[in-house]
């Protein structure tokens, strides 16, 4: 049990990756708040996993303030904040409306900003207890290299990467570590939506064939599971990672380690 005695809040905590993180944190002994728009999140069903649900729209300042007030009242501190809430608009900049652009930034960048901003006082309290507090943001390998037709998403993730380093600089002296996980392709509702949306190929392939083709581009020949991501989030949240801060942790089955594949 790596997180015993710790309190954690996970935004997007009822979604694909978020739910796996919540489950892992619970298994590691943490008190966990799963914050999301709805109890169901982006998945089809709700499972009662023992987490505390907080209704949170990460774009709303009042929601962030209320969520932290509740955590403060009930737990008195916050050791771990995971900013996993995110959305993806599958368009080029020309196709993206200003409203869609603003919404992308509101959720992915501003949401990370707002939740972190109001979590800091509670995280200082946790750090004062002698172990480091840990913020884990969600960047993306798309913050380094672009997928076609995903412009606003790529830009928001680049913003999260820079924000991660800035927060690590500013709050490291207070005992708060800040890192970002940069997933590649992970089997989530967001990825399934990508396959059935504009990303679904031009070669007349079925979704299954397309998914296999995507797996085959990876050196590991598979894409990740939410549990793969939760494994690293758990480590970064734990005291084993007490010297890890300000870094962007790419977890993508080797996808971005390779150059474009020449088809021979």
């Amino acid at each position, binding site marked *: 049990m790596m997180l015993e005695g710790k309190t954690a809040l996970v935004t997007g905590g009822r979604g694909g990756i978020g739910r796996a993180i919540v489950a892992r944190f619970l298994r590691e002994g943490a008190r966990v708040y799963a914050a999301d728009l709805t109890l169901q999140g982006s998945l089809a069903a709700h499972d009662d996993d023992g987490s505390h649900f907080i209704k949170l729209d990460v774009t709303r300042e009042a929601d962030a303030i209320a969520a932290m007030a509740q955590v403060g009242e009930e737990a008195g501190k916050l050791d771990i904040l995971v900013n996993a809430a995110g959305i993806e608009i599958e368009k080029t900049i020309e196709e993206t409306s200003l409203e869609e652009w603003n919404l992308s930034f509101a959720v992915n960048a501003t949401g990370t900003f707002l939740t972190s901003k109001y979590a800091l006082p509670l995280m200082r309290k946790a750090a004062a207890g002698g172990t480091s507090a840990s913020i884990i943001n969600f960047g993306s390998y798309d913050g380094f290299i672009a997928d076609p037709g995903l412009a606003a998403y790529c830009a928001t993730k680049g913003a999260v990467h820079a924000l991660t380093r800035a927060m690590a600089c500013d709050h490291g002296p207070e005992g708060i570590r800040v890192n970002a996980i940069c997933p590649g392709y992970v089997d989530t509702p967001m990825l399934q939506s990508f396959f059935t949306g504009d990303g679904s190929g031009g070669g007349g392939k079925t979704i299954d064939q397309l998914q296999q083709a995507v797996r085959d581009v990876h050196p590991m020949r598979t894409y990740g599971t939410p549990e793969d991501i939760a494994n690293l989030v758990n480590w970064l949240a734990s005291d084993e990672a007490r010297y890890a801060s300000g870094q962007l942790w790419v977890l993508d089955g080797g996808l971005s380690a390779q*150059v474009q594949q020449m088809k021979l």
Partner: protein
Amino acid sequence: MRLAGKRALVTGGRQGIGRGIVEAFLAEGAEVMTCGRGPQPDGLPEGCGWQSADVSNPAQVTALAQAAGAIDILVNNAGVQVEKTVADSSDADWDLVIGANCRGVFNTCRAFIPQMPKGASIINIGSISARVADPSMALYNASKAFVHGLTRSIAVDHGPDIRCNAICPGWIETGMLEAGFDLSENPEAARKDALARHATRRFGKPADIAAMAVWLASDEAGFATGQMFTVDGGMTAASPINTGLF
């Protein structure tokens, strides 16, 4: 004429990217010489000097530096590639690739830096493969990462007087690229697929890399040092997954 009055050495300038750089430097008014293994080849551009030298051999490089004298521009272009994984690579492969790509760059820099004047520019040919791996090119990929590291070190250590940068070419249309496509069952399809992975929808030409080299060699680049300049038609800006191509 942006390089008028400057003296340049381009290693491995007989063909490919090096040849492109030699021609561009000559066109910009530089005095240019190149070197390579063996005797002077036929067909060097008019006005290009030649020295026989194997850059992997320290004694030959010392002799090259004595013959060449002071130069303003050093382009470390000579390089080799062996298409193997780590498990398949022999000691001879190691000696060949590391000898030319790593030791060669070290040899020329060590020999020429003491005789380069203030304001001189060293340009190393690195590669996108130093950052993202080409499959079955293990020693080559690693050797180019060495070049990038050495580039930064030279920039830091010799900064007040000498600038040092690397150019990272992507896929440049040389005989090597065409040979790669010819290995394919369907060269036409392979070529089309590869083109679609370039934002420019074309491959690079030696002249594209030479254009960057001219700029880095010129006094316009007086504040540029210690950096890797990627010229790859946008290829490494994009994810290797491009579902539109599947």
